[in-house]
């Protein structure tokens, strides 16, 4: 039933094409700075009038989620978080790319040690800086957090956008991942990289009746081009998933979800253990109240990072995406967040 409803949602998306609704997404221009395997470091240029001289903008590295495409942060011109950030910052972003089958054994540890480290070093070299501001979205926030634990001297500040920290928090996705019945080793051996269709199916199954709710909300708005454009853009992004590196997927489910390593034993990187309580950089967190993917209780709280030099938290109304890109977030959270990052001081120049 869930699948048929999911299908109806996708059909709706397909048919919306013929009505001429906008499907252009992720249109903020970017240039390639460096690449490491499938991963790319992109620099976004500011189209909107800048608040500062281009060369004086502090660098900010955005680490998007490992699962979906990064352009959720640049969905439409009026809903583009990257566009907003580019007014005040020199915005860089890591595009995870399309993982190749040969790289299926790449774990989170080796991803950080090789690909991430190379791109980060190139960013520092390009900006001639010793540290940059970092921002992570969803699971990308966990990667950014680990990097901040490993190299605090290279991170000026850390912002986590709807990032799961405590994976024991009550939620359907957490309970599914905690179920030990799925043999991860066999799963990786069979599929290599975690296939997008399985993950997308799981996300749709979290709220099986959602397509029906969407349809009902949408029908009275069919003539409203703005609403339809927004809907089509979001559905385009939602249907455009990517595979996740097999090793990373295994790590995420085993170490993060099942063992809750960030809260309990810590993350092991090249033989050294890193604990969340040792995080020293200024950290900010944005959490959505009705998030069904990352439960509010599972996001970062001040008590978890006693060593952080500064802590700030924003709670927004809405779900995993709406809470971050909705009108309320745009009007209140985005400007405050940008101001908070600026408050953490200029980056150290080499």
């Amino acid at each position: 039933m869930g699948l048929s409803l999911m299908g109806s949602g996708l059909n709706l998306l397909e048919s919306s094409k013929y009505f001429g609704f906008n499907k252009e997404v992720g249109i903020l221009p970017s240039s390639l700075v460096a690449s490491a395997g499938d991963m790319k470091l992109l620099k976004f240029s500011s189209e909107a009038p800048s608040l500062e001289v281009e060369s004086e903008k502090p660098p900010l590295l955005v680490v998007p989620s490992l699962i979906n495409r990064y352009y959720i942060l640049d969905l439409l011109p009026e809903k583009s978080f990257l566009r907003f950030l580019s007014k005040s910052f020199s915005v860089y972003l890591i595009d995870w790319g399309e993982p190749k089958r040969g790289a299926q054994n790449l774990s989170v540890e080796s991803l950080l040690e090789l690909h991430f480290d190379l791109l980060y070093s190139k960013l520092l070299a390009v900006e001639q800086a010793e540290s940059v501001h970092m921002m992570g979205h969803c699971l990308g926030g966990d990667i950014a957090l680990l990097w901040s634990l490993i190299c605090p001297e290279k991170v000026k500040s850390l912002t986590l956008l709807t990032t799961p920290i405590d994976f024991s928090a009550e939620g359907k996705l957490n309970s599914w991942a905690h179920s030990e019945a799925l043999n991860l080793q066999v799963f990786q051996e069979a599929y290599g990289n975690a296939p997008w269709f399985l993950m997308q199916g799981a996300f749709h199954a979290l709220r099986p009746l959602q397509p029906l709710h969407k349809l009902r909300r949408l029908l009275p708005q069919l003539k409203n081009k703005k609403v339809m454009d927004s809907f089509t853009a979001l559905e385009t992004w939602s249907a455009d998933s990517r595979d996740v590196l097999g090793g990373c997927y295994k790590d995420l489910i085993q170490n993060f979800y099942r063992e809750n390593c960030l809260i309990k034993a810590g993350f092991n990187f090249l033989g050294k253990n890193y604990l969340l309580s040792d995080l020293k950089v200024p950290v900010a967190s944005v959490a959505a109240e009705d998030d069904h993917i990352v439960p509010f209780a599972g996001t970062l709280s001040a008590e978890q990072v006693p060593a952080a030099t500064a802590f700030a938290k924003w709670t927004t109304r809405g779900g995993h995406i709406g809470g971050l890109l909705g009108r309320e977030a745009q009007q209140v959270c985005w400007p405050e967040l940008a101001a908070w990052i600026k408050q953490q001081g200029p980056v150290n120049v080499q």
Partner: protein
Amino acid sequence: MEQKLQAFEKQLEQSLDKLTSHPLFLQTVAGVINFNCYRKIASRKALELLWGQLQIPLKADQEKMMAAIEEIQIRVQKIQLEQSKKVVLSEAPSATIHQFQAISKDTVKSGKKKVSSLNS
């Protein structure tokens, strides 16, 4: 009518939530996925055996090789970056040393001149 529909939807959603969170349901789904994984592995291994007997290189091996080359490339690039940093760092003091040497040479020369003028 709409209220009834909403109530029905809510009930249905709750029931589906219960069902999809039930351990038995999760075990069954995981069992199906696990079975499918074993089936995939078995069929792939059988094909690998067949290709191996024909002594034809496998696509998977080539992909692994490419990934290994990529890893080496990344490591080389990292070393290059570190080396370039070291060069930049070592250039700064050496420039100062050259300047110091030039100044000291001038001083020695002028000192010698002074001494020679004194002698004369």
